């Protein structure tokens, strides 16, 4: 899980072009000024690419915070 978060940290900084973002499980779209619907799509595409996973629209539409996103990634990733 730690690995997922450290990778997410990098992705968030890239997508939102902001090095000061600190990714925590409780982080939500309301906490990041640039996190609009368009950047949400860019974020999901970047996550899918980085973790080599695919989400359905229903899964990504219902996420409440980064913790849920991380859990979703963990469930999708092939077992190590």
């Amino acid at each position, binding site marked *: 899980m730690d690995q997922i978060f450290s990778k997410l940290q990098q992705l968030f900084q890239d997508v939102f072009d902001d090095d000061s973002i600190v990714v925590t499980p409780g982080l939500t779209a309301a906490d990041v000024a640039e996190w609009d619907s368009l950047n949400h799509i860019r974020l999901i595409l970047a996550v899918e690419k980085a973790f080599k996973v695919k989400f359905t*629209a229903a899964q*990504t539409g219902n996420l409440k915070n980064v913790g849920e996103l991380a859990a979703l990634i963990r469930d999708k990733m092939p077992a190590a």
Partner: protein
Amino acid sequence: MTDDLYTRLAWLPSAPADFAVTCKAIGSLLEPGCAVRDMALHALDQNQLTRLGRTITRLHAEGRSLAPLEKFRLGLIGNGTLDLLAPVLVATAARYGLALECVQAGYGQMTQQALDPDSLINASRPNAVLLAIDYRALPLSVTPGDPATESADIEGALALLKSVRDGLQRNSGATIIVPTLAPPPEALFGSLDCVVPGTLRRVIARLNDAIIASIDGSHELVLDVERLAQTVGLGTWHSPALWNMAKLPFDDSCLAIYADHVMRLLSAARGRSRKCLILDLDNTVWGGVIGDDGLEGIKIAQGDATGEAHLAVQRLALELRSRGIVLAVSSKNTDAIARTAFRDHPDMLLREEHFAVFQANWNDKAANIKAIAQELSLGLDAMVFLDDNPAERALVRQLLPQVAVPELPEDPAWYARTLSAAGYFESVAFSSEDRARAGMYEANAARSALKVQAGDLDTYLATLMMEIWFAPFDRVGRNRISQLINKSNQFNLTTRRYSEAEVAAAEEDPTVFTLQVRLSDRFGDNGMISVIVCRPGAARDWHIDVWLMSCRVLGRKVELAVLGELVHCARAAGIEFLIGTYRPTEKNGIVENHYAQLGFSQLAAESDGTTVWSLPTTTAIPAVPMIVHGSSPHAYPPALKRKARSH
């Protein structure tokens, strides 16, 4: 492998490891334009392109100059979400020397944006408008077995497109990029879809044919999205998930290659496509090293997989040559040994006479490429260099960044495809002169060889048996005239660009004096090599608005012959003075003293380096070493002479 080639822009060197840091630092550079361009010349993925594109847009907003990138404004109209595309286009444009500003219409506003003269797109006065639409933008229905509805749908779609294109043309004056449509991969019957009327497969195929036929060559460019989507794979191109979620018209993995196709097209329309392919020999044109393996040892025959891979490179080079791309060799070899392959190997497709310049020696390749450019009077930015050796590629890229040097995979089977995928030779028109061009350059190279032997210049010029033809602008010449006006950079006194419509206007205006000039010699027809436009001045003056000449015929006293014709015609029209202007640009230094050398006297010099010159039409012009056919209505070269030298 194949997916990677296109969607990952595999012919570009991979992105530097410190991309993010470098991208961030660009803003603090004094002259960020060059750094932006260097960065864009790498194989960036969509995230990196987005980042670079945003950086560029931010610099724009801050009013920073991105020179030497040239400003260009592109209007974007589509039926899907364009927000992901815009920054990728901006970054990709830097690869082609453009500082792009994207003006983006709201989602699904195609018709309103086109028809309203004050719409966001029209009011922004864009240089070009990209119709980034897919088949879902058009009223097409699926009616299997119903040819009448199929035809009605196609007509309806064409009419809608036409009203959009006409509206944009009328209200913005911009060049319009019209796409073909990528059919979705979902079949109704299966293979039968291509037979039964009313299937999307059939409707879109017929509609694409109609779109291509409807393109107005002087204001519109066709972007063959259907071909691009098929190349990356329709199943990859169309992502139902992304369409549903965000109305993305195609998969985000295709953004980079789509943007590259848009920009190479725009770049070609601006006359920036490359003109010369320089080939390495060992392990590029044939397998093996001829100096070590000998004539019998190199691999080039049919039936050998390696040999066939290199034959494919040769075949592609020959095909490019047949459309006007000039071929040259730069190889580390002993000249005589390298030539034996072309002379004595029965399986070689390429022969010595196909090359305009043959540089087989032990100099470094950058020096050789410079010599080739000089000999052909072409800029380094017209050159593509194909070499299997990564070290040579890196050297040339570093020393001559203007030269395009594609990365090549390890397996030579992919060389030809990689070269072709890079799209270096994208072109927006093809004329009979293009077809003959490679031959002209070879004749030119033969001329320079002769020049060395001939020694004294006048003797040499006399041996050329030149004939020059002058004629006013006309319909037949219009395409080539506007090509020259928009492409010539070096021998160009004013660098004034005319659209094809403006060329037509000059042709029809009785107060404007125009000349198109052709030259032939004993090596062949050089085609149209010079263009002149004079406009009436206040008194009995002609102002020379355009005087340009192809650098292929430099040093042959063509300018003097042109002056003779100008003076002759001016005098006949009762004109007393020719007024010439030199406007300096980065590229036209060679004509700085043009008017002084022709005996004009200087009238004025402005602070930007512009100089104004005058010559009385009573001046006697010296004789020229060629036969002159003056501009009367019947002064065209006879058809026989127009035929280019063929091999």
